[in-house]
């Protein structure tokens, strides 16, 4: 039962913290980045769900 819960592949160990490695893809324009607080769309995670919906933004690069 415990085995199921923690996943079969055993790549994630208990009591370890993991941070996935970021890979650059598209980025916001500098003006949009300053407004959103990040250059990277994958890191744009506003607390306010409404704010998230407002503007998807233009990507370039």
């Amino acid at each position, binding site marked *: 039962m415990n085995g199921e819960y923690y996943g079969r592949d055993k790549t994630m160990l208990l009591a370890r913290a993991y941070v996935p490695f*970021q890979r*650059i893809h598209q*980025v916001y324009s*500098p*003006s949009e*980045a*300053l407004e959103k607080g*990040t*250059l*990277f769309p994958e890191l744009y995670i506003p607390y306010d769900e409404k704010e998230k919906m407002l503007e998807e933004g233009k990507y370039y*690069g």
Partner: protein
Amino acid sequence: MDREQKMLLKEIMEYSFALVETALYLDTHPFDQKALSLHNDYSRKYHELVSIYQAKYGPLTNDRMSGCPWAYINGPWPWEIEFDMH
């Protein structure tokens, strides 16, 4: 501070922030060609904008050379600027 000066200053801030982002990314991805070229583009643009700004409006930072009188203290100070441009 007129609108044109404000726009230029805002653009400098935008590129300055973008540079912070690419620089932090590159700290952990030093061989990422795409991030490097993005960073270099931003850097070129940033320094271009800073020279244009300083030629027109005076020093942005107090490590710049100055004629007499000392130009850095010419206003406005950052807290005197109304940034509401929308």
